[in-house]
């Protein structure tokens, strides 16, 4: 069976990430700290605004959004740029290239195991706590199904962007700057740190035309929309699907061209 050779990597990833129990605990503690900062920051923002509703969102709307965005970030972020950069610098990439599968797939499936563990250890608990504490901010209905579909596509888009940026490391052989730059752009324009509703007008429009908002803003808007219209949801999913395909093709092509560069000119 063909899928088996990929799923075995997922399985390995799960076992591997379970070996580092302490690491998971540290991540959870770090998130709590981050969320505390977020809480006070936004409390101050709302206090200085003087109104209960800023840009169409109440304080609790914003907080719920940001808590869930953080939870999503924790399970989607695979530090692929970092991993690729390191593999390229250390030369480990030669071994990965000699596996009988495409490098792009090999890398994705190798890190898919940590998705699974992070999903159960960080996202799901946060999600349930938010659902329990807020009494009804999250509706349990068909929107959950769409949310799951949306998250799957978000994972794919996020990975493709990481892979594209990681490929640049083949040329630069340095990781730090590229990684930070990518992080800042993605975190801001995807709505992971500030809800896109808060952006000033031209930036908001720009953000909607970029792929990044499909990563965090799209699934969360499907999940948190109090009065969802099927058409809006389908439009969101449609846009995601477009970016999903576009980024995948782009990543694949760029990798192919870059790798050829390397195999021809040496590295």
């Amino acid at each position, binding site marked *: 069976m063909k899928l088996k*050779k990929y799923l075995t990597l997922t399985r390995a990833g799960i*076992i591997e990430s379970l070996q580092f129990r302490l690491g998971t605990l540290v991540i959870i503690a770090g998130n709590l700290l981050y969320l505390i900062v977020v809480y006070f920051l936004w409390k101050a923002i709302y206090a200085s605004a003087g109104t209960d509703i800023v840009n169409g969102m109440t304080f609790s709307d914003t907080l719920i959004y940001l808590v869930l965005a953080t939870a999503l970030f924790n399970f989607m972020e695979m530090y692929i740029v970092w991993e690729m950069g390191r593999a390229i610098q250390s*030369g480990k990439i*030669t*071994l990965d290239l000699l596996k*009988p*599968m495409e490098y792009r797939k090999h890398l994705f499936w190798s890190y898919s195991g940590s998705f699974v563990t992070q999903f159960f250890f960080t996202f799901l608990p946060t999600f349930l706590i938010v659902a329990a504490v807020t009494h009804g901010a999250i509706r349990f209905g068909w929107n959950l199904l769409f949310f799951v579909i949306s998250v799957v596509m978000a994972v794919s888009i996020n990975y493709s962007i990481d892979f594209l940026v990681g490929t640049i490391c083949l040329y630069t052989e340095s990781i730090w700057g590229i990684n930070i730059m990518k992080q800042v752009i993605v975190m801001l324009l995807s709505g992971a740190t500030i809800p896109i509703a808060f952006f000033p007008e031209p930036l908001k429009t720009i953000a909607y035309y970029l792929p990044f908002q499909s990563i965090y803003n799209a699934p969360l808007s499907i999940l948190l929309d109090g009065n969802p219209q099927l058409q809006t949801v389908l439009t969101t999913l449609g846009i995601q699907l477009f970016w999903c395909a576009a980024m995948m093709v782009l990543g694949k092509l760029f990798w192919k061209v870059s790798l050829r560069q390397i195999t021809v000119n*040496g590295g």
Partner: protein
Amino acid sequence: MSNIIEIKNITKEFKVLNRREGLKGSIKDLFSRDYKIVRAVDNISMTIQQGEIVGYLGPNGAGKSTTIKMMTGILEPTSGEILVGGNVPYENRTKNAQEIGVVFGQRSQLWWALPLVESFKILKDIYGVSDKDYEDMLALYQSLVDIEPLLHKPVRQMSLGQRTLSDILAAFLHNPKIVFLDEPTIGLDVSMKAKIRTLIHALNQEKHTTVILTTHDMGDVDALCRRIVIIDKGKMLYDNDIEHLKNFFGSYRTLKIRIDGSLKQLAEEIDRKLSDFKVSADDEWISILVDEEKATVMEVLSRLQQSYKIRDMQLEEISTEEVIKKIYEEGVQ
């Protein structure tokens, strides 16, 4: 016997930026288009047959790794043809990967945090090895080395020797047609080296796997390879039997003598007297590399006895190591 690897006149050139010195130079380099072409592999041809163990030798930076990378499909030759198991490796890298196994002595392909057996299971699935073949292979491994205690040990807790051994087993797991071993015995102790040589030899015999071995350890070559290929500065220097190599370089023998006094000074003295031969000294012996076509060992010995009191002597056949060293230093005439 069929040819598993066919290489015809391959050349590989790299474009390297001409670096300038100092801070000013480094800043200029940022905008420089001043490249020079470095020829890492220069017009090499060879054919290797299924089941051979070939020692691929050369000093550091000779172009060995580049050739291996071309055979595995990671690099594309600048010119020339290369066929591995009927595939053009750089065009069908993924397909080629199914047919080859690789061990880079310095690097491990195993899953660091997991017990060895998990790595084996992953590799089994990745390469699509059937349950039966997998079981058979493990049974074979068990009969060759005692892997049972290793199987449940996380790779990160292994000693270097155990890890190398595991890596070699992992490379053979999917029964590839060719295994590339890049310095497999580097940094290992004597008994582990012997164990690994026995293992490679046994796997080659049992599975008829072609093995391409690069190494700097002539012990590996003597124990495993019948054929050796030597390259230096990208050019092929030698491709033939190891026996032939020794004859090719004439009948050299090393005469070792011990004389009272400062060996260093005496060696220099003797060197002046026997200008035809290479003389060197270590803490215990003075070694004279005698070319028996010019003078027999007995003649040399009797000449020396006229002027010195020889307390002890030893006679050594020339080792592969010395022949190789001679080739590296002087080339093939």
